[in-house]
């Protein structure tokens, strides 16, 4: 821990020095990115040094970038609970999404999410670093669009398009028409559920389930009070993994009423990592849910 803190101090000190240097000699500031010219700075048109500061662009960039092209991913990519590629991410230096440390990495392209703090995006803009933002996937169609968009931003359009074609084919292979679509509920901390118009809702539908949230009149995400979940009487309940440390939000998931309901219903805990981001890994979530549905069909 102290080593980490020391590294952080060093980084801050170095950033300060660089700032002062840049102010004194404008020529130094030119290196990271000249706003007037081609952001790539190399003849092929592809950016040579790419930094990703968002969990979802981290994963797409790791899948699509040419060797050596991606120089840093966000620290979130290392967390095995939320990142489907934690092992791969260990090979990259991590950043914490702060403009200062990103600037020090001298990128000629930054990949961010549309929910990256505005102050950070504005600062990167002022520093003349080109930024491509990717909106969170709200549907399976968004997933393939994201692959194409990130591929294009990296100058790897062919790889992005190929990944999208493979995604379409794999998704189609997972499709089947069940004799009866069981009614399922997605239930997370604080009683949060997801309906149609969300990536999780589409994963559930693609696996052959009907969604309780739709019956409750919810589109997008929203809170489903525990007593309405109990009365809705779902066949299957999908819950997320719990995080370390205590929280009242997750305490709801061990509420005696929910435990009693789970005693007589099928359900399962599915790792968040395959559900959060629009990457090919959402197919793992679809496949796992489809297996669970088939088990439900064969059960007496």
């Amino acid at each position, binding site marked *: 821990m102290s080593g980490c803190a020391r590294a952080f101090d060093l980084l801050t000190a170095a950033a300060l020095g660089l700032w002062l240097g840049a102010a004194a000699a404008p020529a130094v500031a030119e290196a990271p990115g000249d706003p007037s010219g081609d952001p790539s700075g190399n003849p092929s048109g592809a950016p040579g040094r790419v930094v990703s500061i968002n969990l979802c662009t981290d994963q797409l960039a790791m899948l699509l970038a040419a060797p050596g092209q991606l120089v840093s991913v966000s620290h979130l990519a290392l967390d095995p609970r939320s990142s489907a590629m934690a092992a791969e991410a260990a090979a990259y230096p991590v950043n914490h999404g702060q403009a200062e440390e990103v600037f020090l990495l001298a990128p000629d392209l930054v990949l961010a999410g549309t929910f990256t703090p505005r102050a950070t995006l504005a600062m990167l803009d002022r520093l003349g670093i080109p930024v491509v933002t990717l909106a969170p996937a709200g549907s399976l169609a968004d997933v393939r669009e994201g692959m194409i968009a990130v591929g294009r931003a990296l100058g790897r359009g062919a790889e992005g398009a190929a990944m999208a074609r493979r995604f379409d084919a794999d998704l189609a292979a997972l499709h089947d028409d069940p004799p009866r679509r069981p009614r399922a509920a997605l239930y997370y*901390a*604080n*009683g949060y559920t997801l309906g149609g118009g969300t990536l999780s809702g589409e994963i559930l539908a693609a696996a052959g389930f009907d969604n309780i949230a739709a019956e409750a009149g919810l589109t997008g995400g*929203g*809170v489903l*009070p*525990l*007593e*309405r979940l*109990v*009365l809705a*009487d779902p066949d299957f309940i999908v819950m997320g993994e719990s*995080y*370390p*440390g*205590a*929280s*009242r*939000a*997750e*305490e*709801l998931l061990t*509420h*005696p*009423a929910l435990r*009693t*309901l789970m005693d007589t219903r099928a359900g399962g805990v599915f790792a968040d990592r395959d559900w959060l981001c629009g990457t090919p890994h959402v197919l793992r979530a679809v496949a796992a849910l489809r297996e669970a549905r088939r088990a439900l069909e064969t059960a007496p």
Partner: protein
Amino acid sequence: MNHWLIPGLVALVAALFAASLLIGPAAIGVGESLAALIRGEGEAVVLVMREIRLPRALLGVMVGASLGLAGAALQGFLRNPLAEPGLIGTSASAALGAVLALQTGFAAGFALALPAAALTGAVISVVLILLLAGPRGSSLVLILAGIAISALAGALISLVLNLSPNPFAANEIVFWMMGSLTDRSMDHVRAAAPFMLAGAAALWLTRRGLDAMTLGEDAAASMGIALTRLRLLLVIGTAALVGAATAVAGAIGFVGLVVPHILRPWVGAQPSRLLPASALGGAAMLLAADIAVRLIAPERDLKLGVLTAIVGAPLFLHLIWKTRRAGL
């Protein structure tokens, strides 16, 4: 002197308790609700009534009564109408104890660990207040000490929750500061009940002492009241009540201020009669507030402390104004 006060308050609490059981996000008929609750008819409805709504209504009564009782006892002992668990930092300190127990994993150690940790936090703050303000301290010292303790405890709660590895923990600062009864269960009722009963018993023993204290500390001592024992019972009783209430429902302010203030004229300003009346009044106020949060914004988990502060803070300002004019 009003012989109808206690029966009237009991009827009010009973009516609000019934209303609390019948109100919720799922629309269930009155007959169906009661059949499920009492006779256990209808599988899903029974689960809703017995495991979700019943603990919420029970905790409304228990937490409200605890806060009303603790407020009345503190005011009697300090002879100051501004003394209240929320305002003097007891609730915030209890919340800090609870948060520390939850985040370190101590709360998972044994069944009553969570309320015990909250009680420890509450004891520290009550002892600090008695040392700083004491029975002879001015209102100014009492309020300033309360602000300091509340601010420190609140800051430490934020620190602990922000450092938690759990991504949801930091969002729960507002729960610990404002309180809520949403989605509490029978586990919480069982954890809080023993501490609340012990605390209520301790404060019940102080009632004669508190009556004597209205004449002043010296007069009380000359009447044979053991002040050390009185002080000890008060600290333990208040801390147990506020600690248990805060551990399960978060810090809910102003109940202990408003309720004794409204009821005091009805009992002839006699602390021994004010204690049971305040317990019932506190239960009624908290049940009413918890019904209101469900009616105003059913799916938003509006915090209880928001409503009690809207009612309580103007009264608090009024009391400060009166205190100032009295030249204290």
